């Protein structure tokens, strides 16, 4: 399939930004300077970027506890995100949300979510807004194989079909719900679950940007055209633990090393586009250098940013009270 030059460059930049953001967080978290829980998206970049490449600010997404990648792919700035993760007043949520609650509704980013299965019902509502307001938008729920077993997710698949909503359910199946394998926790298959609701099903290799881009394009076009909701099953793998500090004692020796060697979406992307001269290696090198500087600057700015003030404690509980 043909992908426009600017989309390729933008997508590579977005995946590189997610990778560097997460790898840097892994290092910085170990220093003890970052409070709370952090769940890294490394290894899964092609999914968020391949899906969001088909979306505009009119479209809505809901994310998960592993949400940094979705935020970056939907256009949330890394400065505001990094400051948020450091608990600073300059953060995108003024330091009151943290890693698991980064949101920017002006970009159609309905939030990362600390509750597994929290997003799919919200996305039914966002899709209902798109339908009632007739704005041409679609709503996309990212959720994991773990959340695929939540009642909220299964109820949402049903409701979206009953109401024929412009909704896309992206099951990011990384093979583990925390420390338990999907092969243990998920009965049946995602494909059969979609079929059970009469919902069209697409799947793809989530470590291959081109595969995700193509499958997501077809899935989103189906929903956007008013043909009802779809499921997109993205098979991928995370390179770090459930959260930072997880020693991953449930994974065999060498599993992550082989993922990094053979299923690196960035390496594969570079190989693919340079082999056929779609992009020059130097163009990708330039992006790598520029992203590195951007992340360096975001970390420095976050560390030096002001903390929230005591008056912020009781602010913004309500619009008015």
């Amino acid at each position, binding site marked *: 399939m043909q992908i426009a030059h600017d989309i390729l460059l933008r997508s590579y930049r977005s995946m590189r930004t997610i990778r560097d953001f997460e790898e840097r967080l892994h290092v910085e978290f170990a220093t003890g300077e970052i409070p709370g829980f952090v769940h890294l998206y490394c290894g899964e970049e092609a999914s968020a970027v391949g899906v969001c490449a088909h979306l505009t600010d009119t479209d809505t997404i809901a994310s998960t506890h592993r949400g940094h990648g979705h935020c970056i792919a939907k256009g949330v700035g890394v400065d505001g995100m990094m400051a948020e993760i450091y608990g600073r007043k300059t953060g995108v949520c003024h*330091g009151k949300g943290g890693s698991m609650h980064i949101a920017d509704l002006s970009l159609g980013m309905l939030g990362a979510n600390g509750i597994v299965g929290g997003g799919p019902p919200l996305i039914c509502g966002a899709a209902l807004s798109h339908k009632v307001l007739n704005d041409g938008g679609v709503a996309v729920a990212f959720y994991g194989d773990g959340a695929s077993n939540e009642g909220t997710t299964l*109820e949402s698949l049903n409701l979206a079909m009953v109401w024929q909503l412009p909704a896309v359910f992206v099951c990011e199946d990384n093979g583990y719900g925390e420390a338990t394998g999907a092969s243990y926790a998920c009965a049946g298959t995602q494909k059969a679950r979609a079929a059970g609701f009469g919902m069209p099903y697409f799947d793809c290799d989530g470590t291959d940007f081109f595969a995700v881009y193509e499958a997501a394009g077809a899935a989103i076009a189906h929903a956007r055209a008013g043909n009802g909701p779809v499921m997109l099953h993205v098979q991928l793998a995370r390179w770090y633990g459930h959260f930072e500090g997880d020693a991953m004692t449930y994974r065999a020796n060498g599993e992550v090393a082989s993922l990094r060697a053979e299923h690196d979406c960035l390496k594969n992307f570079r190989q693919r586009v340079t082999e056929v001269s779609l992009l020059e290696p130097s163009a990708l090198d330039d992006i790598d250098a520029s992203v590195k500087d951007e992340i360096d600057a975001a970390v420095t700015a976050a560390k030096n940013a002001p903390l929230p003030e005591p008056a912020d404690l009781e602010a913004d509980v309500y619009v*008015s009270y």
Partner: protein
Amino acid sequence: MSKKSFRQAINEALRQEMQRDPRVILMGEDIAGGQGGTAGVVDAWGGVLGVTKGLYTEFGANRVFDTPISEASYIGAAVGAAATGLRPVAELMFVDFVGCCLDQIMNQAAKFRYMFGGKARTPLVIRAMYGAGFNAAAQHSQALYPLFTHIPGLKVVVPSSPYEAKGLLIEAIRDDDPVIFLENKVMYDDEEEVPDEPYSIPFGEANLTREGDDVTIVAFGRMVNFANEAADRLEKDGISCTVVDPRTTSPLDSATILECVEDTGRLVIVDESSPRCNMATDVAALVAEQAFDALKAPIRQVVPPHTPVPFATVLEKLYLPDSARIESAVRSVMAYKKAKQDA
């Protein structure tokens, strides 16, 4: 102005707000009814007790959405729709069913604004029936407003009459925060004069249905009616009561409650919710902390026992506070003498 039932007042508030603002939509189980049935009749029910009857017929399938029996998905959808440009009024048939969708209310709707740094608006109303007295037993009779009141980010409304219900529901729909609006199911046929035109009643401003010198009675929802009955009887014996209807438990009009207690020096609180950590304990703590010196007698709470709501009529009558129990509590605080000081 015309005589309207509690049911009609709510229906009229919904209709007038839907006429005013095309972003107001309704969703819930059988709020129209009849979809997919063999009779081919839509708007068959208008809600399980007929409160939304006629709205589907008037506003159509793009404004009134029947849902599967699937509270987690559609209450969550109402939250998501509210955060993305609509103003949904979702009916959670019986408030007891909140067990099936509490996450969507407690962790999503209530938290968005704070968690997202003040950038979200979630203009959502969740209507639900509450209350005992209908032989509906333990899973269909609870008065769960303290549960919602406990959660920052929610507003909670407990209307006490048809007039109050219409004005408070219109206010709830126009409000930009998530509002839980609780309707006592025993009151749907209560009638009173209600203006035909739209009007709103602000949240956090208590209504004094009686003003007196001796005892302040703070009562919630249907209990306001019982408090008024008790106050009328006590008046004949020369005991004059102020009856405070806070209207909303969140925000709570603490200032008015404290002023009334300063004036009367005696307080009886009537609450039909379970007695631990309920509105009675909340108001008692408020007064004990901020108006202690004004008190001439201990605070009395008229509340149910710490049990589920029973089914049998005889037990349910014993369970619910009533005007006789309120009257007796008022007489007891009037009779109270500070024993140690007198001795």
